[in-house]
């Protein structure tokens, strides 16, 4: 039984060191390949926590009842306002 490392050496495919193919999927080919270990560029990734944004917000649709309630409340507020205005004018 070959170790993973040795079996990689036997593979003709040039594999990047950070994407190991699974062992059983590999065909047994007897040839020697070079091991590639990058020495510059982005070699490793450190998981640094970053700030998170709040997510986009789908706006919920309003039910008919809610719309009617809101409309009625608006109208009522308007009516009260107008009556108060009229009262003020009368008292002046």
């Amino acid at each position, binding site marked *: 039984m070959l170790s993973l490392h040795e079996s990689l050496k036997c593979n003709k495919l040039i594999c990047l060191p950070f994407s190991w193919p699974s062992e059983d999927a590999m065909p047994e080919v007897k040839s020697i390949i070079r091991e590639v270990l990058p020495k510059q560029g982005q070699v490793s990734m450190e998981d640094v926590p970053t*700030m998170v944004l709040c997510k986009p*917000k789908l*706006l919920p649709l309003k039910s008919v009842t809610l719309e009617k309630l809101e409309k009625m409340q608006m109208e009522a507020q308007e009516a009260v306002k107008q009556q108060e205005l009229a009262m003020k004018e009368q008292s002046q």
Partner: protein
Amino acid sequence: MEVTMDPLFLAWSYFRRRKLQQCSDICAKILQDNPYDQSFAVSQCLKTRALTEMVYIDEVEVDQEGIAEMMLDESTIAQVARPGTSLRLPGTSQGGGPTPAVRPMTQSGRPITGFVRPSTQSGRPGTMEQAIKTPRTASTARPVTSASGRFIRLGTASMLTNPEGPFINLSRLNLAKYSQKPNLSRTLFEYIFHHENDVKNALDLAAQATEHAQFKDWWWKVQLGKCYYRLGLYREAEKQFRSALNHQEVVDTYLYLAKVYQRLDQPITALNLFKQGLDHFPSEVTLLTGIARIHEEMNNISSATEYYKDVLKQDNTHVEAIACIGSNHFYTDQPEIALRFYRRLLQMGVYNCQLYNNLGLCCFYAQQYDMTLSSFERALALVGNDEEQADVWYNIGHVAVGIGDLTLAYQCFKLALAFNNDHAEAYNNLAVLELRKGRIEQSKAFLQTAASLAPHMYEPHFNLSILSEKIGDLQSSYTAAQKSEDSFPEHVDTQQLLKQLRQHFSVL
């Protein structure tokens, strides 16, 4: 000479065409002109009905819980409910809904829904402190009790507009006399209940009428139940509804009864009741919707979606079901499918700011960039109030972040705050952008504001924790991280940060 129509007939015609104000005006004239005529009683009845219809709202939908009902709850049987049995502990069910990392949360810790009804408007806060704080941050203030809520305000307003005083003076009404007349008593009851919002008098009338009907009329029992519900006597309401169901199976009674159970925080009983109802009325849409709503409120999104799909099989123009399934697809990373659902709503003739905003978002995330900005433009053209405008600008800010135009994003979030100064999400996102510009103090201030405005969101706490850790303030970083963990326990980054901080502390 012009032939004039009989005023009573005209009023009746107006009523049928739902021109209620005109109907009421004509009736008032008839009542003034010939008080001893035979048409007097008829027009009085008609005016009562017209006035009722003007302010009529579906009682099944109406549910507003005041602070008093919520905090001074007498029906609780256990301090902490078992998982999956309560509507008040939303995180307890194992439904596998999306985490707050993908789907925004409401104040009560539930994922936001695709559809609002009067009862879903503001969730149930967990503590007294939160309950009192809620009105300060939400756009609508929570009333002290449901009896002092919107209904009373509406009732008094309808009084004010009538300079001669109320149409029917309830205190001078002989309820006993009217309860004997079955054809008048129902109209009168609905007038008292819906128009005057005088639940106690309505209850009196209903009690006498049901006695007159020898406790055999289901309609009066349902009305009694409605009155008890409004008064907060849920067990009595339950009794009346149950008894009404014994006389006659009616869908509405099932819905009212389920409402009682939901208020008593017994979602499982409500679900069983709905299933009983479905045995009698197979595939009834309102019952199916009720089940779906309960599943959704218990954070069991996948089964809620199943039931909403059942609803759509029966009624393929059900706005609530389409909207809920659509939003669920959006937040499970399938904006293309969500887009189809929202387009369906557009086809059906729903035309408002919310829909265009959702279409814009779906288009953007489904990579249909040509439609995105025009949808948002329409959404902005259709906004009804400042809060909506703020939300639309907030979402445009997200689009700007997505295309990398951070200046535009900054301006959008600023605009969101200009329209709604309590927009916690916008504060948080602005803080992230400020930090990119290197303005640490400004960023920190925004994050603190966001955290105090919306303590239920994990993002501001988490960001504040990272920021504090970077500038070396480990203690406040730790407290913020703990708060973040409280609102989102499964968040991996928070846990890592906490672990790291604990290591730091143990070294010291």
